[in-house]
């Protein structure tokens, strides 16, 4: 008789065994859950609570997280300040919110416009060559983002930088300054922001590319062949067959790209430092600078991070729903 059948019968021996297993499960899981409580759940609640206080660590507060006392409860004041107030951090944060959305709104379509057609072409070539190309396209995503920022600061160097040289080579006039001229606008978008978008998409496109290549491989060949037999040309096949079949993957990739775009930090902090004139200031950079560089009211920074959290949370819920939908061709 195996232990399994004993367990199924619920015999006394099996009951003891079950109790022993339950004890083991609890004993193992409780420390892990306590740990997660301390380092994940508790901080998220702390951030939420902090958003309703005016708080600086050096001020004397109550025994409870240093809140109260000289760190008073201010209700929704931090949020009201962020959306309607005249304080410098609030003003910068409102600009930062706009910039973060602008950045995301530029990154997602540009990324898709590059990765979708490229993945179709990549999928159509010989397997061995495909692996090599795929590996190289993926190279920037595994690289140190600090080193990449240094690389791009040299690409964008005014005058002698490689991009200026390429512009001159093809007969275009390069901008005097790529990253520092607040008056350089193209279709109302600051040049510095465009430069950051280009550098970021360059660094990040490999992810969506390999995702699309994998998705394309899972499309039944018969569907694409049928379209061809019906006389569809390559563009029609791409637009009317491939794109609709990939719609779930495209949607998922877009949401993932949005979520990651909202959390970009290194390139904004090191390539443009939020400048010129806050034109590339983002929400995360504001949170960091207020909390850790200027050491302002941490309650205000916490409120900023809760606003960012809610935006990301909504997108994450969308992502989870997309992952859960079953899909059939």
């Amino acid at each position, binding site marked *: 008789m195996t*232990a*399994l059948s004993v*367990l199924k019968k619920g015999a006394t021996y099996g009951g003891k065994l079950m109790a022993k*297993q*339950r004890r*083991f499960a*609890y004993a*193992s899981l409780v420390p*892990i859950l306590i*740990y*997660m409580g301390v*380092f994940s*759940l*508790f901080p*998220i609640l702390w*951030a939420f609570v902090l958003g309703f206080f005016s708080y600086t660590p050096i001020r004397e507060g109550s025994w409870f*997280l240093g809140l109260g006392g000289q760190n008073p409860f201010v209700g929704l004041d931090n949020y009201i300040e962020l959306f309607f107030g005249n304080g410098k951090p609030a003003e910068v944060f409102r600009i930062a919110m706009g910039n973060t959305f602008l950045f995301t709104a530029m990154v997602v379509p540009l990324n898709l416009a590059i990765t979708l057609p*490229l993945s*179709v*072409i*990549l999928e*159509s070539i010989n397997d061995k060559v495909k*692996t090599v190309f*795929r*590996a*190289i396209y*993926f*190279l920037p*995503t*595994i*690289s*140190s*983002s*600090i*080193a990449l920022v*240094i690389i791009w600061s*040299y690409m964008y160097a005014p005058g*002698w930088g*490689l991009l200026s040289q390429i512009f001159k080579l093809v007969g275009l006039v390069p901008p005097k300054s790529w990253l520092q001229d607040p008056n350089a606008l193209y279709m109302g978008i600051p040049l510095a922001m465009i430069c950051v978008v280009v550098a970021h998409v*360059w660094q990040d496109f490999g*992810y969506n590319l390999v*995702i699309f290549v994998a998705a394309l491989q899972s499309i039944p060949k018969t569907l694409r062949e049928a379209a061809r037999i019906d006389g569809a*040309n*390559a563009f029609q*096949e791409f637009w009317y067959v491939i794109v609709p079949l990939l719609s779930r993957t495209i949607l*998922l990739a877009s949401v993932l790209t949005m*979520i990651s775009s909202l*959390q970009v*930090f*290194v390139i904004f902090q090191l390539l443009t430092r939020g400048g010129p004139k806050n034109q590339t200031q983002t929400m995360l950079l504001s*949170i*960091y600078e207020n*909390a*850790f560089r200027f050491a302002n009211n941490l309650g205000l920074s916490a409120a900023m*991070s*809760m606003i*960012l959290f809610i935006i990301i949370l909504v997108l*994450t819920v969308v992502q*989870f729903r997309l*992952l859960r939908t079953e899909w059939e061709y």
Partner: protein
Amino acid sequence: MSQQKRKPIFWLLGKSGAYAVLILGLVATLLPFFYIMVSSLKTEAELRKTPPDFFPAAPTLKHYEAILTDTRIPLARNLANSVFVSLSRVVITLFTSSFAGFIFAKYHFKGKNLAFGLILVQIMIPFQVVMIPNYLLVVKLGMIDSLLALIIPAMVDAYGIFMMKQFIEAMPTELMDAARIDGSSEFGIYWRIILPQLGPPLASLGIFTFMGTWNDYLWPLIVLTSPENRTIPLLLVWFQTQHVSNQGLVLAASILTLLPIFLVYIFLQRWIVDQATQSAFK
């Protein structure tokens, strides 16, 4: 190749057209790396020349030499910090993820769904949101400017638990029962039966944890202050601010930072790309 079998995209571009697009993408991807690598071999005078030459007239490794022999740069110490933190986090994360994943996959107990729900919630919480309270917590625990601040708050990875649970659920329970009859302890089942079967997912989680930790910048920037405690990304940023006027050194330092990961990538590229693709859908 017959007309029927021709790949559709070739109808529009032709085979050479398709390759032309791919190679253009390749050049765009590699040119920035190549440009910096070539420039790092130039002398200071050549770097300042206008209009600049793309290739150095007489390539020199002196910038690399200068970095590797400069005793004022705590390179060895910072490298050791990065290795220590990354490896610790990999080992700890692999253990906690597989062990908790095992409990969730193979045991039945009250409150299991609630506990697992809490873990799923963690996956949805971005680091930026808990950054401020985690900093305050680290201050309270006295771990500011210590490498422990990079390890202790990151010992359990919710995504890792989720991933391991999925793999372990697919494993047959018969072997576990057989081991129980043979008198194995519950932990022994995890250690001797489950863990040896987890090679591929452990490798995948391990490499991404390693690369994530190795390249991590924001959290170390917040909690580390002394030069000797820096990790490699912080060292590179500091080095850049120190040598604004000495471009060759900064370029060489960037290449030195990129190189180790590239070398690993050359051997593991196929597998890394496959793993990255799969993890996007889980």
